[in-house]
């Protein structure tokens, strides 16, 4: 019985996990640069911009990602214009946008801490040595910021691995959705719960690999303080 089910389940979970990985990757690709833009906005000396940005960050960080997913996916339809359509592509797009915005806000706070954590004396030492602003940023402060943000970013990135499962709420066919489908019935199999539990292994394996990679990066930056 199990021997017959396993290949079917395994294949379905793999398909689901590819969707999970895609959401993970797209979120990082979008949120890492967008977070920087938001960080600069929240540090702007132009008060209206910094207040607006900080309010936005507060709203996004202060409400559940699940709620944001629901609003972004169902909101347009309720207003009489469902851009997302009914398919998987639309669900993925809506999920990606919600995740990118949400994670960009978290990243922006990490960046802000990293940027403001580099002592002003580093900048001044560069200035006194006749360096341009660009040289000071790229040769002096950037690496110190990266060193500061790598540990908190690692935490967020590991959290993101697991958060992708929230997209299940709008029926994105990620790995949890795939596991759950065998409970209700799919491909002639129904009423089994182990596929759902089995999805846990995917998360464990993937977050384990990331932990090792990010830990390695952190270690490589340990040559200075």
């Amino acid at each position, binding site marked *: 019985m199990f021997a017959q089910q396993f290949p079917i389940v395994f294949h379905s979970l793999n398909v689901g996990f590819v969707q999970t990985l895609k959401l993970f990757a797209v979120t990082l690709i979008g949120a890492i640069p967008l977070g920087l833009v938001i960080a600069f906005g929240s540090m702007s000396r132009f008060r209206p911009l910094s207040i607006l940005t900080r309010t936005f960050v507060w709203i996004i960080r202060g409400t559940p990602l699940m709620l944001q997913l629901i609003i972004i996916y169902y909101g347009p339809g309720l207003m009489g214009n469902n851009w997302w359509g009914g398919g998987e592509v639309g669900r993925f797009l809506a999920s990606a946008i919600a995740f990118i915005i949400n994670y960009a806000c978290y990243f922006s706070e990490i960046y802000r801490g990293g940027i403001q954590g580099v002592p002003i004396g580093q900048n*001044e030492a560069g200035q*006194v*040595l*006749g360096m341009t602003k660009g*040289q000071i940023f790229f*040769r*002096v402060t950037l690496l110190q910021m990266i*060193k500061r943000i790598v540990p908190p970013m690692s935490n967020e990135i590991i959290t993101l691995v697991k958060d992708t499962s929230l997209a299940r709420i709008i029926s994105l066919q990620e790995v949890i959705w795939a596991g759950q489908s065998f409970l209700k019935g799919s491909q002639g199999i129904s009423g089994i719960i182990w596929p759902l539990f089995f999805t846990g292994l995917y998360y464990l394996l993937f977050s384990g690999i990331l932990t090792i990679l990010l830990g390695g990066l952190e270690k490589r930056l340990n*040559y200075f303080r």
Partner: protein
Amino acid sequence: MAILQVENLRKNFESLEVLKGISFSLEKGEALSIIGSSGSGKTTLLRCMNFLEMPSSGRIVVNTAAGEHVLYDDQNTKTLSESAIRKNRLHFGLVFQSFNLFPQYTALGNVTLAPRLQAKARPDYKERAAALSREIEERGMALLGQMGLADRAGYYPHQLSGGQQQRVAIARALALEPDILCFDEPTSALDPELTGEVLRVIRGLADKDTTMIIVTHEMTFAHDVSDQVIFMDGGNIVEQGPPAQVLENPREERTRQFLRGYTN
């Protein structure tokens, strides 16, 4: 002709006037010590000369073999552009109280970073890159040797003691061959047993006729090393002259009062 002339330099932070018209001049090869109580404006004066702060008004003029350079003149807005400032500040070097070494570079890397970046801007950089790089490296090593740190060239700042870090910072400032080297309390952040090695290095520079301005609370050192001493109080120069006069026979009551805090 004095190598440095500061004329009626003023600096305000909002409504707070921190420098109230500072004027002095410095001859080439002289060491000038600036003493004064906390908050009298010594750091602000050094920061204005290095353009970490923009003066509010006055003039700063440097005279070198290459001619007269007006570094700052409140009447001449050309001295206020970012690129002019970047060029002008190279007449000065600044050694900070807190060293401010770049942690991700070795001692040698700290010393050679700015010279390397300047070399890249040269028109002949492409043809001579390797030779220039070697020259910069050798000069950096020579400077570290002069600081007694030849064997520490490959160390990162966190692997060095405070005294060693400050000596690297001095080498870093010297690498750009400034006309005038400024020190802002170079030993204040150091454990007492480490001040000696840094003061010895500065003394060595004075013996070699390096033109220097030293803000310090080390009175004995100021007495031994400087050709001129300025006593500042409340944003003004109260008294200036040779150390034997200002430190031993001050004319002003305020100077005497200040020095009394150091004799016992």
